[in-house]
């Protein structure tokens, strides 16, 4: 693989996807410290939102320590070079949240839908594009459908005004060949001016390999998170990816030692549990289940005595999609009843 001279824009997820792993309890001080460190290390784009995006504050997904507005107002003014992005899932957040984020000074809005439901994003993508924000269409759980289906949905988002399309491996299920196939088709068929991105999870240990495959196939934006702080076994660990890109002589603009230090000195100490491929996270990848289900399944195991692994496999079998966290307790209750545990 030859990535020499290729330009890659790295997008940090630790303060958004990492919110899942922190049960949305990252403090304002921690947000500022990590974001400032990333800015100094040269990371150009940093996502700051509730794990489930703007408006995600809920009993279903977890109430955060602070509102999206508080986090954004704390972080945005501290950035010297880095820009801040916010995620929005139609059905959870609304255009009102989007306008709030714009008023807080975000540069990028990423509108996320399940990979077959892009047509719920028209009003949000349209609004973000109209406000002249960097507007990204983010197709989640992209492993569940064919490359052709992803292309069809990507074209919808492109037609609504997205200037960048993501192929998102929310379950950490994909292997590099699948990434190559999907990104290559998008690159061949979408408007050449439309940027492409890849968002990986490390549940099968493939996040770095998948991200490289994505760049090789034509993606120029890669999501990762410093120290891997993200849902499931975490996202593509950015400091590792930076080192790999360095070796491959790709252009990324990030200071390797500085980002290593942010990972080691700031992010690892704030983790509630080691972010690693444990048996439950591995099951997410293996069964193709949305990564943020991890802690919910583990809590259901503690409460109802049904193994998290069994719950996750059943959720995969039922074709659950992102956002269906409420299904986990419901299913655990049903399984516990069937086993005579309650």
């Amino acid at each position, binding site marked *: 693989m030859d990535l020499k001279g290729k330009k890659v824009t790295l997008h940090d997820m630790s303060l958004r996807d990492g919110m899942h792993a922190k049960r949305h309890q990252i403090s304002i001080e921690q947000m500022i410290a990590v974001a400032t460190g990333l800015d100094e290390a040269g990371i150009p784009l940093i996502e700051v939102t509730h794990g489930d995006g703007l408006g995600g504050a809920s009993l279903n997904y977890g109430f955060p320590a602070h509102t999206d507005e508080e986090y954004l107002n704390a972080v945005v003014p501290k950035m010297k070079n880095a820009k801040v992005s916010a995620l929005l899932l139609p059905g959870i957040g609304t255009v009102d949240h989007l306008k709030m984020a714009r008023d807080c000074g975000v540069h990028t809005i990423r509108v996320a839908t399940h990979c*077959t*439901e892009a047509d719920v994003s028209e009003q949000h993508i349209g609004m973000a594009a109209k406000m002249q924000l960097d507007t990204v269409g983010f197709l989640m759980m992209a492993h569940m459908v064919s490359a052709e289906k992803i292309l069809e949905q990507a074209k919808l988002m492109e037609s609504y005004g997205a200037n960048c399309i993501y192929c998102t491996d929310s379950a950490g299920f994909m292997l590099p060949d699948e990434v190559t196939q999907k990104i290559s088709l998008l690159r061949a068929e979408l408007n050449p001016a439309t940027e492409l991105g890849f968002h990986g999870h490390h549940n099968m240990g493939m996040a770095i390999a998948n991200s490289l495959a994505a760049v090789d196939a034509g993606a120029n934006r890669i999501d990762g998170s410093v120290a891997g702080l993200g849902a499931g076994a975490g996202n593509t660990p950015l400091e590792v990816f930076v080192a790999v890109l360095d070796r491959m002589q790709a252009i990324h603009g990030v200071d390797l030692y500085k980002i290593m230090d942010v990972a080691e000195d700031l992010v690892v100490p704030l983790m509630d549990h080691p972010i690693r491929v444990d048996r439950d996270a591995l099951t997410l990848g293996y069964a193709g289940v949305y990564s943020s289900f991890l802690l919910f399944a583990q809590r259901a195991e503690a409460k109802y005595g049904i193994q998290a692994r069994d719950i996750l496999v059943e959720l995969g079998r039922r074709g659950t999609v992102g956002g*269906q966290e409420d299904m986990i307790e419901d299913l655990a209750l049903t399984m516990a009843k069937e086993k005579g545990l309650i």
Partner: protein
Amino acid sequence: MSKKLKAVIIGPGNIGTDLLMKIMRSDWVELVWMVGIDPDSAGLKRAAELGIKISTSGVDGMLDKVIEDDIRIAFDATSAYVHAENSRKLNEFGVIMIDLTPAAIGPYCIPPVNLKQHAEKLEMNVNMVTCGGQATIPMVAAVSQVQEVEYGEIIATVSSRSVGPGTRQNIDEFTRTTSGAVEKVGGAKKGKAIIVINPAEPPLMMRDTIHCLTKETPDQAKITESVHNMVKEVQKYVPGYKLVNGPVFDGNKVSIFMEVKGLGDFLPDYAGNLDIMTAAALRTAEMFAEETYNQTIKLPARA
């Protein structure tokens, strides 16, 4: 005098057609007109085959027949954009408007919670909220009828096949309308609504989760009883309304997990979200008819 009130359906799409099939079985409502704007509409053809009068020029195509045919009830299953005009035109002739669009000009109506009040006041326009609202607000109300609910949150998960283009283009309307009605009708101080669309095949049955945070420690026995009673009330018009799990108590949090199986009239049974809308709309019309028959209310006078 027949006890049945005569009705018109505006909008012969999925919802309108499902409603048509339900009304054909009603003891209280007689469908006389079905109107649309598309001459090729399958819904209008079906109506014509059943002997229903049809018009392809919308409401305007039947306005001069309202008095002659003694139309008393209109169901609007079109869109929020045209609802206000439809309602104005028909209200002028004293027709009660049941709004299945997100327009929500009139008060929200969740039959087992507040329909009787609307009927007694002879509200001339009632709004059926959203599918998620019909499926969940009775449960929020079941809790708030026992004790104060500080916060009510509902999550509606529906099959991709059951979500039409109108809802998709304006999904924010679903979240706003539903959360508003969780407060106004459900009785929660603050409401939140989330909708998740799932494309699994075969399509999943509509499922709904309701979480309430009570102000004081929840009275488990009373809330459980209230929830079971409310489930029975909804089952009167949606037999497939099923309590799957709960109520589960965790501190001040009360969680209820529901599944809604439709009758499978026109829409398949997994589309419980659409079925509960049409069933609730018909239930609403029937209540107006019952109250009229019992002489609790008097319909607007006609020469």
